[in-house]
């Protein structure tokens, strides 16, 4: 229990206050609004780094915890606390936000693209203030979702996120943005409602087991997981399965698991590049994070029974997403399908129920955030220069804008998880984790890396190489702002690829704790080799 300074509440309040501040900026001053937004995100980044520094990896599971009663009748507490996984993802959010604000610096100033594709009049560009205020609001809600240790608080912000996202997608996207926004909202709301039923059922179950004292139920995650562990709260199997499915459905829709994924391509194609990254790099991560934090911890038996099913769906997602990415003609839609494939990897890692798998999955969430952000933002620069999203309109950009092509290639290589870059480490861990539990699934998933190479290289070849196509010759190279956006992402991809140890050290204890919750241990090697070699290869911690 750290000192009394409410780190996490402040961490959540800063972007929220920032959002209000940006909204309050007088209408005319666009530049001021943008700068304020950037400043707020940088302050948030500093806070996040401070939180990470304060978090001691081998301390107890949840640190910097806070607990104030919020709604007495239900026994709902404004309980925040962060574990290894939470702190890493909050850091991801805090790092990505300034990059996104910079990247979509004048996305909101461009005139409105009407439904039939014609461009609105430049005299009435959309409101920049609303754009950045909503982005900050989303950041605040994402941070709370990562930091919540009270299921009710988590659920409220898990759902609240949809509203600003709806306006961001619907207000500032391409021609079909309203269709995409409505589809996004309906899909996720449906998921949320199913989850609401499960949350209520859980509360009732805790009330029966009198966890909250005086016949009251509780929403406190730690209390419930402890009760599940000690058998104080043993739900009958069918109820547990039903509740698991309720939670799982909402998270499967949020982090697109295969059959529920059709909203992502539309959203990412229509939204502006910055918002598309916001969706896939941060908002969707809440889904996978929640699978790890809530599905496994609260319903261990149901997780074990449903694990094979989820693994199969995820594997299908990997291959399906990759194959569809190869078949796309629109750049952003292609990147959307790559994200579906990557989310397949994350989910297979989580539900392989091995420490390598889950650590790999958590690291994957972080790496995917950076690699997709880099790829999408560079693609966004490319698209905004040429004004068209279809791949066929590009060709030979490498000759005209070598720097842009170079960063696009590096981002592409990160997406196909080239060793030496960050995604390789997490992908390999996920694959090893899956292979050690389900051999067949492991091998099929490994085919995903070949398809990954296919769709990235096909995209790179069609847009960048070959003779300079008409209309491409006027594309100018990256300007300073865009470089400042891409440089940190690529640097992080390199550093995390070469030295991911600090992140893994933070994540491992949380993962081991989750696995012990689910009573699953890694399958021991069949023919271990007694340590013959004199040299124990590894110094470091075992």
């Amino acid at each position: 229990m750290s000192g009394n300074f409410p780190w996490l509440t402040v961490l959540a309040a800063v972007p929220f206050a920032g959002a209000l501040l940006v909204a309050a900026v007088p209408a005319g001053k666009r530049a001021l609004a943008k700068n304020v937004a950037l400043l707020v995100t940088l302050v948030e980044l500093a806070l996040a780094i401070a939180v990470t520094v304060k978090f001691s990896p081998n301390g107890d599971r949840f640190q910097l915890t806070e607990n104030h009663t919020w709604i007495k009748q239900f026994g709902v507490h404004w309980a925040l606390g962060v574990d290894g996984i939470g702190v890493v993802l909050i850091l991801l959010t805090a790092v990505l936000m300034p990059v996104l604000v910079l990247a979509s610096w004048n996305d909101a100033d461009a005139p409105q693209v009407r439904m039939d594709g014609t461009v609105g009049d430049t005299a009435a560009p959309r409101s920049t203030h609303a754009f950045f205020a909503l982005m900050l609001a989303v950041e605040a809600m994402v941070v709370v979702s990562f930091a919540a240790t009270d299921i009710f608080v988590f659920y409220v912000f898990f759902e609240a996120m949809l509203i600003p996202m709806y306006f961001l997608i619907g207000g500032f996207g391409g021609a079909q943005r309203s269709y995409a926004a409505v589809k996004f909202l309906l899909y996720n709301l449906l998921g949320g409602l199913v989850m609401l039923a499960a949350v209520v059922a859980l509360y009732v179950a805790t009330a029966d087991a009198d966890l909250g004292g005086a016949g009251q139920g509780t929403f406190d995650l730690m209390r419930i997981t402890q009760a599940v562990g000690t058998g104080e709260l043993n739900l009958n199997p069918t109820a547990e399965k039903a509740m698991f499915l309720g939670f799982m459905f909402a998270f499967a829709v949020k982090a697109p698991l295969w059959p529920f994924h059709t909203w992502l391509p539309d959203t990412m194609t229509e939204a502006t590049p910055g918002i598309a990254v916001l969706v896939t790099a941060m908002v969707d991560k809440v889904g996978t994070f929640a699978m790890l934090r809530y599905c496994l911890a609260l319903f261990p038996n149901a997780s074990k029974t449903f694990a094979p099913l989820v693994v199969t769906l995820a594997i299908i997602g990997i291959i399906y997403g990759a194959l569809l990415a190869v078949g796309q003609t629109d750049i952003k839609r292609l990147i959307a399908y790559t994200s579906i494939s990557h989310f397949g990897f994350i989910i297979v890692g989580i539900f392989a129920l091995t420490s390598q798998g889950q650590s790999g999955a958590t690291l994957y969430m972080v790496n995917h955030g950076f690699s997709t952000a880099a790829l999408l933002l560079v693609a966004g620069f490319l698209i905004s220069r040429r004004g068209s999203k279809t791949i066929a309109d590009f060709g030979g950009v490498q000759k005209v804008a070598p720097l842009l092509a170079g960063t696009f290639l590096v981002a592409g290589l990160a997406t196909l998880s080239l060793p030496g870059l960050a995604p390789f480490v997490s992908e390999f861990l996920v694959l090893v984790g899956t292979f050690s539990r389900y051999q067949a699934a492991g091998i099929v998933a490994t085919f995903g890396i070949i398809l990954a190479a296919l769709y990235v290289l096909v995209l790179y070849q069609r847009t960048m190489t070959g003779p300079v196509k008409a209309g491409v010759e006027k594309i100018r190279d990256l300007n300073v702002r865009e470089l400042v956006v891409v440089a940190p992402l690529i640097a992080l991809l390199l550093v995390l690829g070469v030295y991911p140890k600090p992140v893994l050290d933070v994540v491992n204890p949380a993962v081991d704790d989750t696995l012990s919750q689910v009573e699953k241990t890694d399958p021991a090697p069949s023919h271990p080799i007694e340590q013959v070699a004199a040299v124990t290869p590894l110094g470091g911690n075992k």
Partner: protein
Amino acid sequence: MTQTLVSAASGALLATGEGGPGLHSVPATGVFDATWLVIALPLLGAAVLLLGGRRTNRFGHWLGTLLAVGSFFVGLALFSAMLDASDADRSVNQHLWDWVSVGSFQAEVGLHLDQLSMVFVLLITGVGSLIHIYSIGYMEHDENRRRFFAYLNLFLASMLLLVLANNYLLLYVGWEGVGLASYLLIGFWQHKPSAATAAKKAFLMNRVGDLGLAVAIFLMFTTFGTFSFDQVLSGNAQASGGTFTGIDLMLLLAACGKSAQFPLQAWLGDAMEGPTPVSALIHAATMVTAGVYLITRSAELFNASPDAQLVVTIVGAITVLFGAIVGCAKDDIKKALAASTMSQIGYMILAAGLGPIGYAFAIMHLVTHGFFKAGLFLGAGSVMHGMNDEVDMRRYGGLRKYMPITFVTFGLGYLAIIGFPLLSGYFSKDKIIEAAFAKGGTSGYVLGSVTLVAAGLTAYYMTRVMLMTFFGRERWKEAPVGAPADWHEPHPHESPKSMTLPMIVLAFGSVFAGGLFVLHDSFVNWLTPVTGFSEGDSPFSEYAVTGMAVAMVALGALVAYVQYARREVPAVAPQGSFITVAARKDLYQDAVNEGLVMRPGQYLTRMLVWLDLRGIDGFVGGLAAFIGGTSSRVRKVQTGFARSYALSMFGGTALVVAATLMARMA
């Protein structure tokens, strides 16, 4: 910095001397501390040149070459330190930092230097430096020469990382790094669509191989719980035969992917799109031999499953013949040499598959091949340089008068590769043929005869290349059919000094290397502690085998002489028998690949795109439409006539009354 990184625990292991199979390493001390420098220098070069941008254009190529040569000298220093180290201390392990550690999955970034990797380090840095020097001249007038040298350095760094890694995961990093470098270098002239496609094809095929390596590592992890050389190759790894075979086959798949062996060999021919120094360095001397290194390094695993080794020899044999046949029909000089590379690597893979008998000879042939094949490629490069990038041999002819040095160095390389007695090719290839026979049993005879036939074919196509290029009528004087209007007759000239110097050095290597290695078996003794060595009883005496080999070579050369020296070489390729047509099309390998993989893949993709759009999205849209439809139909019930509403009201009352009566009745 090196001192601190060395892991604390040390304690030398008293190796059981010669016979002890398996790998026992001591922590790196003294000179060996500088092992990581070998990789760091080219990596630094690549980073500086890539990030430097235009500012480094002026001195970019010199910096690249300097770092390559520097790395070579560090290699030499290491080699000399290893020479005077005792046998046991030659296998050195340097731990740099912990890379990934999750539960029992421990991966470190550590280097392992022993006799085998020493050979490779020297070969890579040596030939690499020569090719850097050659490239200064060759890439003289290419505007992004700096980027070329950056990629070359990147290639050197990843190849060295591959051969120096001390666990399979780090080897995998080097493995893919080399794949990336070859992708960048093949596709260097990106404005040419054919180069871009070739680069993508190469990378994808390598990726298929990498799948094998990844699965092999998974198997190792699930079976042994670790994948570092110290444990896995320490000789006391026990597992079921099936697991070993599984791991070995996966490793073989990886080797095939990288070394362009039988199932995955289609990319090597197209890789010739890249500049010639690239072909010389990557697709002749170093990268393509990575597969052989992998198999030789994992000797412990392969020895544990004989049938896996049999598969390796079969793959090697098929590729030997495949490459030779294709080589005979190619008119493009670089494609002919590429086919010959494929065939020669087939030899090495075959030798490596023979087990302890062949490991040493495979590596010996690998080194000698590195010399003469690089020499041949550089020779071809200087010929193209002179004939303003004309690659079709039917446009050459009688160039010996115009390029004497190239003619001599190319000639020496030619003699070496066909196995002309006393040259390096003769020694290393004969040993392989001998080892093939020495395998014993029917497979011994089959493999032996295959290698003999291949030797003959090699002589045939190399002589053909030699004659068509340097002898015969000067066909490049008259304009080729359908030449562009501004065609002017090329005037061949000798290449500048910076290009011919490396060719001369390589020529020396290809002449004397063989003899040096065979001199009281110095090379075999050098490698035995790592790979082990056993004589094997060959049905023929050593001299009989050599005799047969030389006879086959002479026969091949004679046939080529008859066909290409005596008769006039037509300027336009004749139709030729069905074999030549097939060979021209690389025995329809591309057709097979497209038919088996590409086309079904495209159909599947198109079907899935349709499914996603119509199927899943269709279902969701359908749901919405269904609800809309039913509501519009139910709406029609409200007809607007007061009397129909009255009827429904009255009907309702009747039902209520009936219900109450029913309730009262019951």
